[in-house]
């Protein structure tokens, strides 16, 4: 298996006033293609900061980040934009949908910046992505007409629509009820089975059993990195859940 992500002594510091917040204090790890990694840790431990750097949205203060063997530092701004557009699907903790914009338009957005995708194909793929997250009946709803969980699912659909090789999800199930979060996890597991690399940030320790590896952060350090050889199928769990649990979110 080839290395898709490799970080070496990665540090990220924020200067706030005359104080330095050290969010990441020297992380090193490697993620192979096709891994499903859960990143856990208490609030403020640096999970989002790490994920933003992995998603090429932010740059480390020091240390190295190799994406597909290339140091991200050496990738031009434009090429990083293309990377984000074609290879990475990023799901924000705070969704970050375009306001006053319908679900379908939000999901179409990444493809708008990809001229290889025609108008009709763009629409088809956006509808398919929204169907995959169970929102086919909310295509024309604007962001503010959706519940928090629905917005989260639109954000997930948007991350999937460009068919990325790597999905970075920051609390992608944070706002979903148990059943819907298992549905989303099933989706992720399917993507994982298709060979996609997934990095999944969560608070919820129960979700670790669905991934192949769990990295735990505390105060900007890795305190735990364990492989999971007995991945539980979210689909199976879903099947055992009583139907009555099903509620609209």
């Amino acid at each position, binding site marked *: 298996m080839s290395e898709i992500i490799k970080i070496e002594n990665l540090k990220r510091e924020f200067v706030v006033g005359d104080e330095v917040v050290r969010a990441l204090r020297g992380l090193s790890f490697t993620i192979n293609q096709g891994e499903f990694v859960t990143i856990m840790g208490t609030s403020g431990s640096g999970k989002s900061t790490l994920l933003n750097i992995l998603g090429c949205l932010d740059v480390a203060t020091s240390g190295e980040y190799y994406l597909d063997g290339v140091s991200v530092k050496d990738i031009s701004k*434009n090429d990083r934009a293309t990377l984000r557009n074609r290879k990475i699907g990023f799901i924000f903790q705070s969704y970050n949908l375009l306001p006053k*914009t319908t679900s379908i*338009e939000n999901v179409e957005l990444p493809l708008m*910046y990809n001229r290889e995708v025609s108008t009709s194909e763009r629409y088809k793929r956006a509808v398919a992505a929204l169907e995959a997250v169970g929102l086919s009946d909310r295509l024309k709803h604007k962001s503010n007409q959706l519940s928090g969980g629905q917005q989260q699912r639109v954000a997930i659909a948007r991350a999937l629509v460009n068919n990325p090789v790597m999905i970075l999800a920051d609390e992608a199930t944070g706002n979903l009820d148990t059943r819907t979060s298992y549905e989303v996890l099933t989706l992720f597991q399917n993507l994982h089975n298709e060979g996609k690399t997934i990095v999944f940030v969560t608070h919820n320790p129960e979700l670790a059993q669905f991934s192949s590896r769990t990295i735990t952060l505390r105060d900007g350090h890795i305190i735990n990195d364990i492989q999971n050889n007995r991945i539980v199928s979210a689909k199976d769990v879903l099947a055992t859940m009583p139907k009555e649990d099903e509620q609209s979110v």
Partner: protein
Amino acid sequence: MDYRNLIKIAIKALANNKMRGFLTMLGIIIGVASVISMLAIGGGSKQSIREEIGSMGSNMIMVSPGNGRFGGVRQSASSMQTLKMADYESIVREASYIAKITPTVNASGQVIKGANNTPTTIYGVNPEYLDIRGYVVESGSMFDDNDVKHANKVCVVGKTVVTELFPNGEDPLGQIIRYNKIPMKIVGVLQSKGYNTMGMDQDDLIIAPYTTVQKRILAITYIQGITASAISEEYTDKAIDEMTQILQSNHGIKIGQDNDFNVRSQQEMMETMSSVMDLLTVLLACVAGISLIVGGIGIMNIMYVSVTERTREIGLRMSIGAKERHILFQFLIEAVIISVAGGIIGVVVGVGVSKIIAMFGTPTLVQGYSILLSFAVCTITGIFFGWYPAKKASQLNPIDAIRYE
């Protein structure tokens, strides 16, 4: 790069924020419209003054006492006593390029008829004054040379004086009015000339023999001016030279000395006047310029704020793969659409407002350069300040732009 998509994105973004787009446009509309109408007012009054003075005939020549320079103590022209009847007489005798000529004296005061009275100006002239100034006697007749010779107490009055003194529509002919206690008989009424562009009522006057005004009203022997007309327009300059020479020799003024009188043609008056108007136009242009700057700053503000508040949007777009140039192009298109549409509407509104102002009596002239200038300034400001903050935002890290507050 697929510009079609980017144009679509820009139009969608505009459509999603109609109010913001409209408000931004409003700034540009007001900026452009106010500058155009302001300059139209300046241009209009200048043009109509030109036309007016031109229509008065450019062969009129006026002599007034006093010198044209600012040396020594300057007195007001009417209180100077350098012009005498002898000057008038020698011009009449010697000048060959003069068609009509009259000495002038005038006085301001109250004219009374019974219980009615009104302030007005009385012009003491000879009968040739009518032709020189283009006045026409509508009813009755002009006084004649005999009246001048005997300083008869007769006068010809303008329409305004008639309406003030005879509010009930009585026939003014043959009536006696009192000017500074001097009783005068109305022998004629002038045809109305209306207001001139300077807002002066050209019907608010009384014309009487200059001898009457000199002796009975002012009690002076000198004259206050000479008004003449050249035999035709081409000879105006020659007539001026001629009159100047006659007066110089009369007054014993040697070469190199300052004249103690002024000879000016209507032409020169027109030039003086239009230079005054030029000054006024410059002033108006300054006001317009200031409103252009204020408008520009307003546009700048709205554009800047509306782009800055969209830093999050920019960050988000970049996070899903928009390149810097995609962002710039989107915002450029938005700014161009808003600015150009606003500019065009502003031109239409500005021209419309100018027309409306003209309907209310103030002459306006919409000038091409004002349209061009205001349109260019406003749209360029709009485009630049729509583009520049977007440029700055697009240079941020996507995550910093998203977190921007």
